[in-house]
């Protein structure tokens, strides 16, 4: 019979291996998750919160998902968590960035990122999810449908509508101001 201390030692050893693997996973996956979150939210602070929550959720089930496809789990969690946060959207916006930094390159980059973020924020939440899954996270139409639990036809029609709205938005001034 295996003793309690032996089991604890074994569990601790496995936990350490799991932590090392999770650390490597975070290093590899976090940049892409952060960008996807920013595209979904249009806000740097909320994107960081979203990814943090996603990684915490992923770690909580790491023993279960690490042997399969942890990135797929994190990706789905990110999309679903985003849906949740839309329902409890916070009114304040956190920023760690000073807005009046000098330098033409910086200004140009802010303008560029504001354009894409503002354009995406004009889409409906479902449209934004599909755009990010299809065109940033490079999921196929069928994979996008599977991850969102919707039909293939809905993915196709929604993606088409989103692209049309993005085209139209370029000819229409942003009424709400560009989110950062």
């Amino acid at each position, binding site marked *: 019979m295996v003793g309690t201390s032996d089991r604890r030692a074994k569990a601790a050893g496995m936990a350490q291996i799991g932590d090392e693997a999770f650390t490597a996973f975070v290093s590899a996956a976090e940049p892409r998750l*952060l960008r996807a979150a920013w595209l979904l939210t249009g806000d740097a602070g909320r994107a*960081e919160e979203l990814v943090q929550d996603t990684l915490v959720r992923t770690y909580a089930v790491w023993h279960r998902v690490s042997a399969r496809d942890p990135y797929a789990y994190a990706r789905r969690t990110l999309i679903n968590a985003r849906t949740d946060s839309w329902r409890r959207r916070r009114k304040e916006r956190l920023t760690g960035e000073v807005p009046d930094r000098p330098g033409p390159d910086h200004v140009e980059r802010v303008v560029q990122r504001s354009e894409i973020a503002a354009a995406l924020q004009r889409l409906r939440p479902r449209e934004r999810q599909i755009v990010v899954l299809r065109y940033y996270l490079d999921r196929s139409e069928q994979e996008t449908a599977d991850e969102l639990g919707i039909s293939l036809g809905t993915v196709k029609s929604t993606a088409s509508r989103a*692209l049309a709205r993005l085209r139209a938005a370029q000819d229409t001034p942003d009424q709400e101001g560009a989110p950062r």
Partner: protein
Amino acid sequence: MRISTEDELRAALHESPAPDLRGLAVGEVMRRGRRRRLARRGAAASALVALLVLGVAGAGALTGGQHRSAVPASDHEQQLVAWTACLNSQEVPGVLAVIVPGNHGPEVQFLGDRPAPQVGQPAPRPTLSDDDVRRIAANVWQAALEQCTAAEPGLVDEVQARWGDVTTVPAANKRWMASVDHYKADYHACLRAHGVVIPAEPPTGAPIEDQKAYAEQHVVMYTQGVKAGCPYNPPTAPNE
């Protein structure tokens, strides 16, 4: 930036500069993840142990009430889970401490290590006297006080390693749990008919001492029920 085609949209999403996004330190992520895992297991343990109540050898007392679905565990539930896991890690002979879902939240039960009655057969005489049960229970609680006052989350991992990971309850188990609910009604009716007192559940958030007292009363109830001849033929769990 011009977006007219799918390729232009794809390029814009990939190549447009993003703000300086910072992730949380991975150590902090893991610390929060452990807390979240513990909270999830607090809920999962309620479902898991409900399956174990009749599944372990010599399953003991049944409680009244509805089974709860998996929901985030409160601090109180986490405390119960950690405390129960700690108790079992002490490996007190003949006693298994479990948490089962009750009408007003989770509750702790002690299952005596006695032969399980067979379907259609008279309930066997208990292998433990009331005093034995009380003594064992007292030993368990003494061990809890001495060893488990500062239960650590890792102890829950150990329990889960032993019992397996159950985060959802399959439909077959739900049907079984529903049949257990029916059985419990009959079982309790028998107890009442023989004058055996069914202890009242402490409310959610009751002090741990109340939970322990409730568990002790349940052990007594089961023992008296067996002596009174109340049949104890619960439905067989689907995973057995």
